[in-house]
């Protein structure tokens, strides 16, 4: 069922993208316009979606969604990355990484608080030292200057 829905999504995506590409123009007086190449790609996306949708039912795979502990681990990683993306501009790299690491180690690994905090501190400090100090990368800093 999931794959069938995805195939419909490909068709809709390709069709709407083709309509948009058409509005950009196909061929003008100076040659091909901005819309030609994406239009061709969109038509292929839609066409492939139609072929996949028309395949016999045996070809459509059921998505093996993670369940129970597996689901929590996958969601923990996604949550950790969301925290990084939301927190980094305000809290800086070090603090956000530290918080993310604790989330990951607690939700994914089920580490104890002591080992989660210790490991989060060591890994964050190591990455910050390596990239921020040794390699001179400009990592975002928080209101505390680090």
């Amino acid at each position, binding site marked *: 069922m999931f794959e069938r829905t995805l195939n419909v999504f490909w068709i809709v995506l390709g069709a709407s993208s083709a309509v948009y590409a058409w509005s950009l123009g196909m061929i003008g007086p100076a040659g091909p316009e901005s819309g030609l190449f994406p239009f061709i790609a969109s038509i*292929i996306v839609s066409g492939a979606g139609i072929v996949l949708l028309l395949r016999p039912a045996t070809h459509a795979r059921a998505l093996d969604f*993670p369940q129970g502990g597996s689901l929590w681990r996958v969601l923990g990683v996604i949550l950790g990355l969301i925290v990084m993306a939301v927190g980094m501009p305000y809290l800086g790299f070090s603090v956000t990484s530290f918080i993310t690491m604790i989330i990951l180690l607690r939700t994914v690994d089920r580490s104890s608080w002591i080992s989660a905090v210790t490991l989060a501190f060591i890994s964050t400090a190591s990455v910050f030292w390596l990239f921020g100090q040794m390699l001179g990368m400009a990592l975002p800093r928080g209101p505390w200057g680090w």
Partner: protein
Amino acid sequence: MMEALNGLLSGFGVILTPANLYLCFLGSLIGTLVGVLPGVGPLAALALLLPVTFTLSPIGGMVMLASIFYGAMYGGSTTSILLNIPGEAASVVTCIDGHQMARQGRAGPALGIAAIGSFIAGTLGVVIMTFFAPAIAAAAIRFGPPENFALMVLGLICTLFMISGSTIKGVLMIALGFLTATVGLDVVNGRERYTFSSVDLSGGIELLALVIGLFGVAEILSNVETMAKTTLLADRIRGLWPSLADWHASWRAILRGSGLGFVLGLVPGGGPVTAAFMSYALEKRIAAQPDRFGKGAIEGVAGPESANNSAVAGSLIPVLSLGIPSNPVTALLLGALIIQGIQPGPLFIAQRPDLFWGIVASMYIGNVFLLLLNLPLVGLWVQFLRIPYRVMFPVVLLLCVVGTYSANKNVFDLWVMLGFGVTGYVLRKLEYDLAPFVIAFVLAPLLEQSLRQSLVMSSDGAMILIKRPVTALLLAASVALTFLMFRRRTKTEGGLP
């Protein structure tokens, strides 16, 4: 011939500086580590370290990235042989006989023949590359936009031919790669495409965010789903040097693997993974006692390990001499060169001989570094396997964030990475091959430019693609290959491909 040798000598002149030697060694070291550790592939490692190369000279950066690529091929065998877990995809097939040898107490000779075979094949591959790449570039220098367009189309069709899953899904991935690449400003007229008035999207989708998401984050999501709370351990290894009987059984497999790997590396869609599998199949087919395979046959280690190393040299030829990547790793290398302001292609060797010959020379030296790193220091790499994945993955995730952010210093790229990570995770579950997507994403700007230039220079519209003999030949080959591919898939799958 003499020109190539002179070029190679000048390449050694470029590479034999303390800074470049250090970067070559560092890349070999990181590559081996990446190969040894399961769950961190060479593509993700290259993507993570790409921003580091922005601060280096183009030659230093490329030497380091290339050495990570071939270093991973060396290191991958260690985990396959000792633990029956492939360190990276090209070492999957090494598990079959390599681990059986380890269970029979012959881990040493298995590791030894893998490292020595890799060294021989890697060096042979670079020797052929030394003479072959300039010849290809010299032939391709006469190519105009229509020929380039047809060549890229053929490359993409070859990619489809080599993928393991559904061809239609592969076609869809290529088209999606094209569409994703068109997000941003049209380089010809500055018009916005698919940006939805977003400032963040007007610069286009960042290659690093896309690759790290699809191959780094998606890999982590897959791994944590099935993560077991175990630490990988391996027994002590003794006697790395293969016996005379081992040599007798292996040397032909090493040479065959070297040749096969090189050829398959050249073919778009080929590369180290395909080369290793094909080599194993070949060795098994021609063996006097094929039933030995799967029970610890040393040829089953020597052939594939040689093939995947030789394929690295082969796969660098199309990207450096034609500007066409044959797999996602070389697509990323192409991206790295473009970011440095260098456009690989037929003129690359003539315009940047220092860079081309420097990379080639570094591969000779890198192979020596890798032999030294992988034989005497194998015990050290085994110690790394004691780090549990549950401890390792949060650090890898942090590296993904740093790698993505550092490209543009833009938090928006982290959302792009997360989006592609989740998408890649779901698509992999549904057996979509992501390699054609990345190759198409990198090739799209070049392909679109060639198509538009071809149509502008033509008085008969698209007929220019048929009227020029080389273009017509390449497109005819694409059509023939497409026909063969659909026929083969329809036969084997008994339905739509």
